């Protein structure tokens, strides 16, 4: 049985709200996968529409509706929300549970992800960034994805979890399958594989605890003073694994692709290497313009939303990239203004489930860019960089990003 395509939308979906749209599919010749979303806005499709693709789901296109999809957890649940549907889907902790239960693991993780806790990682991040960049800086070319953007966040995750560097290729491979595959058999096998690895990882940390996140999750106590349930511990590890790798990799890919094609933006950052406040302001604009995640919700009960009938278990996609260009919220939304002062982008979501790792993600990107520009002040897309390297889905990005710069002699 396949859930890929239902030619007949369900009865409660009116024909005039139906659009044939497959967000996993990037048509040939489209170099930037976010363009399939902005194209919807240009075509003026309904701002809340239904597509029968990928099991069938709604799409919200207004900033305010997307923000409401995030905030209103009474109606829009993160629990069992994947697209295409796969059942039962592991209950990610804390992301896959609604408030108030959500708070248990949210509070467990919160101290590890505060801005101060993340600032304390800076030296290690800088060391990792420098090591990777020095490995290819003299060469004058690299595949930014394989040589940097995959290795950096994955290595950071291994560090935070106290795992050996040797596990890097395995983690990269399974994360790739998790985000790209729509095949039910492949996805089920992939989930099994992820949980086998998590099981081994937490058992090992249980025997030999360290000062890492996995050990801290194991050591945490519930309201009765007991360790959390084993499946919740694994599901929390699962969340940290899937949330922090691919998203950072592909955001970096977008940022470096933009810088490679925009000399003025490279100069803007180069001139602010010693001005962290201005550098961070510009990074925030790159976060707005390069929102790679399309987020899922499941409708909890039959209801009417903005005059549209929704049914229990309907799926919804919240495309951050569209919210971030809403002219009702952003001045000159299509312009990339690296000095933009007011910037309430939704790249990290809003409401109770907003990305807990946003400070880590921004710091990873900021430190990477600082180190990169110190070693490689100017770079361009390689002539052979192909448009076909782009992919869609819940995290959009590029399979490869070939960069070139003047090699040092």
């Amino acid at each position: 049985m396949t859930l890929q395509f239902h030619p007949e939308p369900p009865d409660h979906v009116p024909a005039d709200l139906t659009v044939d749209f497959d967000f996993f599919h990037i048509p040939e010749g489209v170099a930037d996968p976010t363009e399939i979303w902005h194209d919807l806005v240009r075509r003026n499709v309904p701002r809340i529409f239904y597509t029968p693709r990928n099991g069938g789901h709604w799409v919200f296109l207004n900033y305010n509706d997307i923000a409401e999809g995030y905030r209103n957890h009474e109606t829009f649940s993160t629990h069992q929300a994947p697209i295409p549907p796969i059942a039962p889907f592991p209950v990610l902790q804390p992301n896959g549970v609604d408030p108030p239960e959500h708070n248990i693991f949210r509070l467990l993780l919160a101290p590890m992800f505060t801005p101060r806790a993340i600032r304390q990682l800076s030296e290690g991040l800088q060391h990792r960034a420098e090591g990777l960049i020095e490995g290819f800086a003299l060469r004058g070319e690299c595949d930014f994805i394989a040589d940097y953007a995959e290795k950096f966040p994955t290595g950071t995750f291994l560090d935070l979890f106290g795992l050996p560097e040797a596990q890097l290729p395995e983690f990269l491979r399974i994360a790739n399958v998790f985000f790209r595959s729509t095949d039910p058999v492949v996805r089920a096998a992939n989930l099994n594989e992820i949980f086998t690895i998590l099981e081994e990882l937490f058992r090992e940390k249980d025997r030999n605890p360290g000062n890492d996140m996995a050990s801290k999750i194991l050591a945490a106590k519930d309201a009765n003073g007991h360790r959390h349930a084993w499946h919740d511990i694994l599901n929390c590890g699962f969340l940290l694994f899937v949330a922090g790798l691919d998203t950072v990799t592909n955001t970096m890919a977008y940022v470096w692709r933009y810088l490679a094609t925009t000399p003025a933006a490279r100069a803007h950052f180069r001139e602010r290497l010693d001005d962290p406040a201005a550098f961070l302001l510009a990074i925030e604009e790159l976060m707005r313009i390069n929102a790679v995640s399309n987020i899922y919700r499941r409708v909890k009960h039959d209801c009417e939303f903005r005059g549209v009938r929704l049914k229990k278990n309907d799926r919804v996609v919240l495309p951050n990239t569209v919210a971030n260009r809403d002219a009702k919220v952003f001045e000159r939304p299509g312009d990339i203004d690296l000095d933009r002062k007011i910037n309430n982008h939704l790249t990290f979501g809003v409401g109770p489930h907003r990305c807990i790792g946003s400070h880590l993600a921004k710091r990873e990107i900021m430190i990477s860019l600082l180190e990169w520009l110190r070693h490689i002040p100017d770079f361009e897309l390689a002539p052979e960089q192909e448009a076909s390297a782009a992919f869609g889905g819940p995290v959009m990005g590029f399979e490869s990003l070939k960069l070139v710069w003047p090699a040092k002699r």
Partner: protein
Amino acid sequence: MKVHVKLAVCQGHARCEDLCPEVFSTDAIEGKCVIEQPEFPPKLEEKVRLAVRNCPEGALRISGGMTS
């Protein structure tokens, strides 16, 4: 002038701390906003106003003083 936070609304984005670390920080338990200096000096007004306008949850507000 004084800046206030509604902690029930704050979700710990810490945009305020990024924009005005003189006034805002983040607690180490829930990861939510802490106002270190509620009655901020006039020279910080512009930065505090930016922090307020950039709060993704609208959790911050300013009271008292002249409005600019």
